[in-house]
């Protein structure tokens, strides 16, 4: 078995003492930056890249990769505990994870996230080892038109993120897309919606929007409530998932893993969609859709698995083709070059120890993350017992410092306040921030690919229908839209009939 030989080579490389050590350093740092709002994996990898120049190439890559997927793990912790997502994927985890925390079930939510991530990491590692080159060649079939349709599909699917009506969710998505257009146009450099404010040229910062809409709005909501004003949770029901919980998370973890692993392969932004799509799928096929948004453990387990699987398979284009899927991967390309390895399709043959060592290290990293995170759950849950009048100023302080440190730009801190108030108003109007955030993240991707597809086709919009992948995705989008809107129409008619009676 060639695969077994390769894996043996991989593990013999990854299990070298210094490689295990730096793998641990990587996932530990990753968890830390994932937990802290503001600082993200890209910044951390960029900062530490020069330090790794003196390492062996494989050691350097193992550590940098560890930071990346470790951060995906850590990001869910603050999302669950204090409704503060640091990455777009964690915003989905916050929906049900934080509800669970409010109900005194932060422990099971954190455990579901950790276990789901571990399973996903393991499966994705196997996928990487067994099928990386064929998966990569499939990913290359995606052109700008296909990405446009994929993102559009993702946006429509995300209507499911909302508890309320489809119309309000659509309005929130549209608002998010519009907010995403602020800043300089990537094709011409023309500033848009900047109102002559130099600070807006780079666009609105994602972290400001997420921290404001989720974290600060949540605090405002808690402060008006007598009970939550003292502490988020007065009682902790259980620390570990119950037998019922365990039964309920198995299928979502497996589905999320499959979905995430597939989407993560796409270099043009598939990993961004993974957690959102998984959430939508779980809500759609659940027998208890009404529980989603009110503390359904499936809504934590599925997206977290999808997110971690995608984080891992997004290495496929990098390792097999030498093509980066996102900024962290672009930095990893730099690490290859610095170490005298020409990134490209030949790495897998020229540097087998490096390729398989990195893959094996990902599984080791996932084990380390599980060992690191499960014991921490008790500690995290205890944090929620801090009196709220002490906790909430701390949350705001850390969020403000984290956001400010991104760009030393006071404007980003003002933006937190602005989006905090906006988020509070939206909650009061029964509009939910999650679809808005998704629109904000996917909007620029949607526009970029729409325009690129039309540039390449010389303005002929038929490309979206003549390309098979794009046509199929658009058809799915239409189905998703009908499925999302139908119940609303039906319900409204039911209400009308009820009134007539």
């Amino acid at each position, binding site marked *: 078995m060639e695969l077994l030989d390769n894996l043996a080579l991989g593990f013999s490389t990854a299990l070298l003492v210094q490689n295990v050590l730096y793998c641990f350093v990587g996932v530990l740092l990753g968890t830390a930056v994932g937990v802290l709002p503001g*600082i*993200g994996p*890209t*910044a951390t990898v*960029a*900062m530490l*890249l*020069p330090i790794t*120049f003196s390492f062996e190439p494989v050691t350097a890559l193992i550590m940098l990769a560890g930071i990346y997927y470790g951060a995906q793990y850590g990001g869910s912790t603050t999302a669950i505990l204090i409704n503060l997502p640091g990455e777009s994927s964690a915003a989905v985890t916050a929906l049900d994870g934080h509800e669970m925390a409010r109900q005194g079930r932060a422990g099971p939510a954190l455990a579901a996230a950790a276990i789901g991530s571990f399973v996903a990491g393991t499966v994705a590692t196997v996928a990487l080892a067994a099928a990386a080159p064929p998966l990569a060649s499939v990913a*290359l*079939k*995606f*052109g*700008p038109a296909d990405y446009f349709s994929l993102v559009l599909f993702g946006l429509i699917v995300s209507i499911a993120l909302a508890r309320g009506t489809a119309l309000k969710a659509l309005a929130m998505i549209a608002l998010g897309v519009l907010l995403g257009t602020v*800043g*300089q146009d*990537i*094709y*011409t*450099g*023309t500033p848009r919606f900047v109102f002559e404010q130099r600070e807006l040229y*780079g*666009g609105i*910062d*994602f*972290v400001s929007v997420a921290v404001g809409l989720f974290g600060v709005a949540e605090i405002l909501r808690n402060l008006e409530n007598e009970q939550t004003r003292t502490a988020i949770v007065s009682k902790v029901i259980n620390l570990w998932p119950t037998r019922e919980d365990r039964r309920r998370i198995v299928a979502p973890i497996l589905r999320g893993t499959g979905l995430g692993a597939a989407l993560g392969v796409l*270099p*043009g932004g598939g990993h961004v969609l993974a957690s959102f799509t998984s959430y939508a799928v779980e809500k759609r096929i659940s027998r208890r859709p009404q529980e989603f948004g009110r503390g359904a453990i499936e809504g934590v387990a599925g997206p977290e698995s999808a997110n971690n699987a995608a984080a891992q398979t997004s290495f496929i284009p990098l390792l097999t*083709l*030498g*093509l*980066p899927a*996102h*900024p962290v*991967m*672009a*930095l990893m*390309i*730099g*690490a290859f*070059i*610095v170490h*005298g390895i*020409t*990134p*490209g*399709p*030949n*790495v897998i043959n020229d540097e087998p120890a490096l390729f398989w060592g990195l893959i094996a290290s990902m599984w080791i990293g996932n084990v380390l993350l599980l060992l690191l995170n499960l014991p921490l759950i008790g500690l995290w849950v205890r944090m929620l017992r801090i009196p709220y009048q002490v906790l909430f100023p701390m949350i705001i302080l850390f969020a403000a410092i984290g956001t400010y*440190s*991104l*760009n*030393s730009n006071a404007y*980003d801190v003002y933006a937190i306040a602005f989006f905090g108030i906006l988020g509070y108003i939206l909650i009061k109007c029964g509009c939910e921030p999650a679809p808005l955030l998704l629109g904000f993240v996917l909007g*620029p991707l949607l526009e*970029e690919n729409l325009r*690129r597809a039309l*540039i*390449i086709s*010389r303005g002929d919009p038929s490309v979206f229908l003549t390309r098979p992948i794009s046509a199929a995705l658009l058809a799915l989008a239409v189905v998703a839209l009908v499925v999302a809107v139908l119940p609303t129409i039906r319900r409204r008619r039911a209400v009308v009939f009820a009134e007539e009676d």
Partner: protein
Amino acid sequence: MRTTSRYRATARMIAAIGVVSLAAACSGNGGAAGGGDAANYPDENITIVVPFSAGGPTDTVTRMIAEPMAAKLGGKIVVQNVEGAGGTVGAGDVARAKPDGYTVLMHHIGMSTAPALYKSLGYKPLEDFETVGLVTEVPMTIVARKDFAPATLQDLVTHVKANANKVTLANAGIGAASHLCGLLFQSTTGVKLQEVPYQGTGPALTDLVGGQVDFMCDQTTNTSGQIAAGKVKAYAVTTPERVKSLPDLPTTTEAGLPQLKVSVWHGLYVPADTPPEIVQKLSEALKVALADQGVIDQMAKLGTAPVPAQDATPDAHRAKLDEQLGTWAKIIADSGVKVS
């Protein structure tokens, strides 16, 4: 992505704090000698500012030469990445730095194109800097999707002339080396092509390998892995000499398009009014570094080579900068690219 630049900015800030604290610590050790004294130069750490991201080609080249240069000068060199706005943020920082030889800038061809691309630059390349010497000229390659019809560079020119309304030319964004090379290709052949901008080389190359766009022009550092693996079709290299890592690839001159000459040339700068003795010391150290066998080998892996010793001098560098400023001002003005 727009979040990236923010993240990078954090790194930049933290790096800056690190450099400042390091410099402070070392000047403490060095006693009262202080900077600016040409005879004792260097008696504290020298910082080379790279106006691009850590791990990029320019950063890599800088780190290669930093160590042998430091050995020759008898001091320490710290490499600092100050990114933003096509390298103009880092260049601006160095232009305003104290002209004592302790702040050095590594910049590439972008030094000569920035005045034509940016409205309010805040510095003048020829007036606000002293040139130290050229470092390397990274060749560019003209590459196409694997199944693109033309077989040779001549065929490509004929093909794009006949199908100007069909062919797509990718680049990594306004002001990127690939964009400049594409502009030069269009002005040389006299054809106006449909350009498809991307956010960086990675996504552009992804779509080229995937066959979504027809061709592009990019540095060997980015393309040689793909060329060697046969994932893209290569037509020519844009330097006078062939590249060692791609021995079968003809030069543009050999392929019949001698006007298409462009390279991503790198040079070292210090702020204007730096004492000439210090500039001379830096230039000497650069020459020694470029003759270092380790540096030559590492550069060869990237598909490039050090410039000849006579070009690693302030005068040759200034002449190159002067000539390139004129060339690009015209090409960019003719292309109708909007300045921002």
